[in-house]
């Protein structure tokens, strides 16, 4: 019986260790290295295409194409494949579990579109509901998901840490955390943050990206968060209040260190203003890109706009207080 108890305790420890969260971020005084960026001001925000996203239709997968299996996905909790298309381009496909309970692919593409529209770097991701796969036994139709292109201009240079990077404490960094809270993102582990070396002519830029953002648009239940579930998303509040000048979020997930006593009202307002500049068409396109049913998309958009209003009013109240 003792061995069994030890085994059960070990299982519990493993599960909690895998969800241990991140350390409290500490701002550095050193400026970001040349060419390194987390965010670039979206000067053309109103004209951005949120259906094909920042990489455009030329980087999109062909929905009628045949994709050859390279290997199955062996990391993470989602099913997936690496495949090659007819042009020889390699794709990382994230698939839902059979039965389609809370698939992450649609969420990841929609959230990625919203983040990239307002200036955050994002990789080329697209959603296909189904695709034709060719493996050693022949062709078959597979349930689709998120297709992420392994573009030669982007070199994966490992992950960056929330608590230790050149942008801690800057408005784009704080704003990114606010946005992830707004989306009810739950999987904020460091290994989902990827540092890409982006070739831009002779210049190599360092793009700090928050990748794999598919654990969102649901709630933040620590053990089994819902994802892409309008009902859970509508139910979960965004901001509970402001205490000692810092915003209290309703977030109850594993990564509280990112938000506890760290975010000021004006940082929430900054992110809300930015997202609030999207047009209705851009909102609809972002969710259409993720393959969402229009009714579900409307529910997410309505709730997100409520959160934006809440964020803006928080900023307005803080500004009033400052004036007084």
């Amino acid at each position, binding site marked *: 019986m003792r061995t069994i108890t030890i085994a059960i305790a070990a299982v519990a420890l493993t599960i909690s260790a895998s969800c241990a969260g991140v350390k409290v971020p500490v701002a550095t005084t050193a400026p970001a290295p040349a060419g390194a960026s987390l965010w670039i001001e979206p000067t053309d925000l109103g004209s951005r295409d949120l259906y094909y996203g920042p990489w455009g239709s030329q980087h999109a997968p062909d929905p009628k194409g045949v994709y050859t299996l390279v*290997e199955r996905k062996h990391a993470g909790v989602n099913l997936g494949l690496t495949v090659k298309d007819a042009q020889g381009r390699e794709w990382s496909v994230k698939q839902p579990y059979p039965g389609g309970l809370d698939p992450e692919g649609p969420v990841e593409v929609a959230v990625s579109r919203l983040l990239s529209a307002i200036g955050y770097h994002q990789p080329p991701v697209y959603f296909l509901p189904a695709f034709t796969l060719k493996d050693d036994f022949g062709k078959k*139709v597979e349930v689709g998901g998120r297709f992420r292109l392994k573009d030669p201009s982007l070199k994966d240079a490992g992950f960056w840490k929330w608590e230790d990077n050149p942008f801690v404490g800057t408005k784009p960094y704080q704003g990114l955390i606010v946005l992830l809270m707004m989306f009810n993102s739950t999987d904020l582990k460091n290994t989902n943050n990827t540092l890409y070396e982006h070739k831009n002519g002779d210049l190599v830029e360092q793009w700090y990206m928050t990748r794999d953002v598919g654990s969102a648009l649901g709630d933040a239940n620590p053990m089994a968060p819902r994802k892409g579930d309008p009902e859970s998303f509508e139910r979960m509040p965004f901001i509970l209040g402001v205490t000692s000048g810092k915003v209290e979020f309703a977030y109850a997930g594993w990564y509280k260190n990112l938000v506890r006593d760290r975010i000021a009202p004006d940082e929430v307002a900054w992110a809300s203003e930015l997202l609030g500049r999207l047009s209705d068409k851009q909102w609809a396109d972002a969710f259409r890109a993720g393959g969402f049913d229009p009714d579900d998309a409307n529910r997410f958009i309505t709730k997100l706009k409520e959160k934006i209003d809440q964020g803006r009013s928080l900023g307005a109240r803080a500004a009033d207080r400052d004036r007084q």
Partner: protein
Amino acid sequence: MKTLLRCVFASLCLVPAAAAFAQEPPAVPSSATEPQGIVPEPDAITRAVLFADRNLGKGDLTNGIYWDFGNMIPGAGWGNAGPGYRHWYGKDFAFIDASASISVNNYRLGQARVELPGFLKSRLLIGASARWQNFPNIDYFGVGSNTTTDMLSIYGIKSSQFTGYATLRPFRWMGIGAQIGWTNPQVSHVSGPMGATEKHTFVPTEVSLTIDTRDYPGHPTSGVMLRGAGANYDDRTTGLNTFRRYEGEAASFVPIGGGRVVLAMHGWLVRSETRDGHSVPFYLQPSLGGIDTLRSFTDYRFRDNNMLVGNAEVRVALMTHLDLAVFADAGNVAARPENLDLAKRSYGGGFRLHTRRETFAMVDAATGDEGWIVSFRLKDPLGFGRIARRALLVPFVP
């Protein structure tokens, strides 16, 4: 007849799917959704399933450390757990896996295997496995169908086993397997009027043919599984326990009403053959009883040289991830195959907690000649996990 054959061939070769490779984007396969249940599902069940799906549902695919659950032989109890490590190499060309686990009944198992599944464009898998096991308390009621529960004895079995195996897969749905192994079961009498303390060395070999079109082996809702196997256990200690075993098995899963109801049927015949003066050791005789065969009888309740069992089960989607099941089992064991019948029977019902591809937990209540038994397990009762194992097991596992 010709039409029937064409239909069977078409379904096996996935011709309907091939028809979708036109110029239009393919339609989303039905596996993307799950049939809705009769009543709305409470949030707690959905989250439990979501947790299980994300943390346990990926099977062999995830590289790294994992926890081995529910992968022990009958008699081990409702569950087992232990650490494991697995890794794929060379774009799925090679796979290694090692694990050790302990069950609630103190059954202990350690195993390691290496597989190369990518030969001949994935048509040929070659592998080798090593296994150490110590099962300290297995029930033994004697041989034959007329044994009674007061004859219960307990024995323990400890063994090491090494196996080399190969599977040829000419089609996605067909496997032709061959294996050769070495094992040294040490049997010890623990309690009760019967049993023996003995030690043998066997060289087991087997060839098998499996046709499997089930949609998800961990939670089958459509398709068939047909299997035939012939094995030889060569007793290298005395030669007196050398025997042959032949198996025929068929299972069918028929979805009705868009999959809200699944009719499952299963039949399994095992025959042992010995030369004059030779015998099959009792722990390698086919046995009946437990959730995989006769659910109102305890594990290994009946054993003899031959065994026949049939199961019928109807599963109704009470909720999206919770099925209500009613079932009937019938079978028997006999010294001679011509004496086999379906005289031992079980009836009952239960619940299955599942996702589309995996049954994570089940509870059954079954009744028969020996009263009621309530069982809880972390697997599907008609998942046939034993056919996925590459090595012949000691003892015989129903």
